[in-house]
């Protein structure tokens, strides 16, 4: 089938839903293309609370956030259970496929809101066998919260990311014994509040600087060997066998950009480089949410999505948006910056991550401190507003973070 829309949004999670609404509110014709049978993305399986404080000013569970936001969106055209096969960015067309066949879609602007996938357990390269019983945290979450399957009876969690800790609590409530959470880094990977409410509440031990060094079991996982790590190497004398039939890996997320690789500019962490208008290296292609960088809060993805949708609608209608004039360049102390280019027109928010825990971190623009963050941790994003009236955001703009003692 042939179709034509002002704005086509790829992915119907929090960011994509925001983009659909943002484009609709600016009178664009919008098509959403979503791989699953419904909108919401990972929100549907995140049945815990902690969502919506920024967007709805109230604390919601993931499914509530999804349903309330969906009501706000009203009606829109969508292709569900549909995959985009390729995008021809030079001719503004894409090919998508579903059970009705192949669709040729012409667009005025595109919003990429494809989110992230889980870093696979295999990426840890742990020696031993490869039996059944090893899951990523999000997959275990889908089984338990959407499909009513229990992954096992006695589990360990590898990695202390938020989803891993949330699954430690969830599995405990469902009767699975969680032997412990193992984190190779000397500091936790997730939010402090999740250590409190997911682990400490249920007396689940968190082992820092410790990880799995061997997998045991033929058909089903029978146990793992864990060891303390020092200077990146396991300590022989600290080795310990842990009996378990389930391993849940929570070792990070990777922006999902396979479809647009080599066409859209992105960093070594596979996040798309956008400017302060959420625009990519094509003037009619926008990106938002976790395919730009991995966010702490779903609310941030929604806000970015709404902006991307709004700007996509403007471009589709022939409005010329301001050009890029500056490059945000992360230097010492900074691991992640959400936006990489500036138009230096309006004040805008960026999110950064420091590269190590700091008691107090000063965030610096071109060496000048503009914000201090107390208890800065890599796991917690710092929100920074960059105002072109206050700082020079043209040319190369260096962002850095310095640890200051209290």
């Amino acid at each position, binding site marked *: 089938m042939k179709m034509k829309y002002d704005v086509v949004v790829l992915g119907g999670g929090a960011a994509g839903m925001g983009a659909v609404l943002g484009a609709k509110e600016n009178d664009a014709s919008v098509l959403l293309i979503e791989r699953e049978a419904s909108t919401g993305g990972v929100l*549907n399986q995140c*049945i*815990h*609370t*902690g969502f919506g*404080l920024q967007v709805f000013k109230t*604390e*919601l*569970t993931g*499914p*509530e956030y*999804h*349903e309330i936001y969906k009501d706000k969106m009203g009606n829109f055209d969508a292709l569900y259970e549909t995959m985009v096969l390729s995008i021809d960015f030079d001719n503004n067309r894409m090919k998508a496929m579903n059970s009705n066949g192949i669709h040729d879609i012409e667009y005025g602007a595109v919003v990429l809101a494809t989110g992230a996938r889980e870093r696979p357990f295999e990426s840890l390269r742990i020696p031993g066998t490869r039996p059944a019983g090893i899951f990523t945290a999000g997959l275990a979450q889908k089984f338990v*919260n*959407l*499909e*009513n399957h229990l992954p096992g009876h006695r589990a360990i969690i590898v990695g202390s990311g938020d989803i891993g800790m949330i699954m430690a609590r969830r599995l405990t*409530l*469902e009767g699975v014994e969680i032997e412990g959470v193992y984190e190779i880094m000397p500091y936790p990977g997730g*939010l*402090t*509040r999740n*250590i*409190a*409410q997911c682990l400490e*509440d249920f007396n689940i031990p968190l082992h820092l600087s410790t990880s799995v060094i061997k997998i045991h079991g033929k058909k089903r996982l029978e146990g793992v060997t864990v060891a303390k790590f020092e200077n990146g190497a396991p300590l022989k004398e600290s080795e310990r066998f842990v009996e378990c039939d389930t391993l849940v890996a929570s070792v990070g997320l990777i922006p999902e950009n396979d479809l647009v690789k080599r066409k859209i500019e992105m960093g070594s962490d596979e996040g798309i480089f956008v400017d302060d208008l959420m625009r990519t290296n094509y003037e009619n292609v926008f990106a938002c949410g976790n395919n730009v960088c991995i966010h*702490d*809060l779903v609310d941030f993805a929604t806000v970015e999505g709404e902006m991307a949708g709004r700007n996509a609608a403007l471009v589709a209608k022939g409005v010329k948006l301001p050009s890029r004039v500056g490059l945000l360049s992360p230097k010492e102390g900074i691991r992640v910056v959400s936006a990489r280019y500036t138009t230096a027109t309006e004040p805008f928010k960026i999110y950064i991550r420091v590269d190590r825990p700091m008691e107090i971190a000063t965030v610096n623009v071109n060496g000048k401190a503009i914000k201090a963050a*107390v*208890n800065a941790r890599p796991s*917690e994003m710092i929100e920074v507003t960059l105002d072109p009236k206050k700082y020079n955001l043209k040319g190369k703009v260096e962002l850095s973070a310095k640890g200051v003692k209290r």
Partner: protein
Amino acid sequence: MKTIEMTCIVCPIGCDLKVTLDDTGKFLSVKGNRCPKGEIYARDEVTDPKRVLTSSVKVINGKMPLASVKTDKTIPKRLIKDAMIIIKSTKVTAPVKIGDVIVENILNTEANVVATRSVKAS
């Protein structure tokens, strides 16, 4: 008097709280909270800790096998195990609508267990 440190879990901001107690362990004051909810949290945490419980219940004749649920108020942490026993044995028949009361006044806590998603009938 003594001071204990804790992280507020009311919202994802996660304020670092310093709670001062008297010698009998009674709550005196809290510092570090950025909103009034932090004070209530700290007070509860040193007397009778409370949590919102989220889980899911089985759905009969639904498009999905489960509907996610939460307690619409916090309940005492010590009752979570008992509340889970009730939630696990609860079944509802589709359609389920977001906000539907699934278990009323669970364990006399004055909190209702409510649906956090809609599930259509199959």
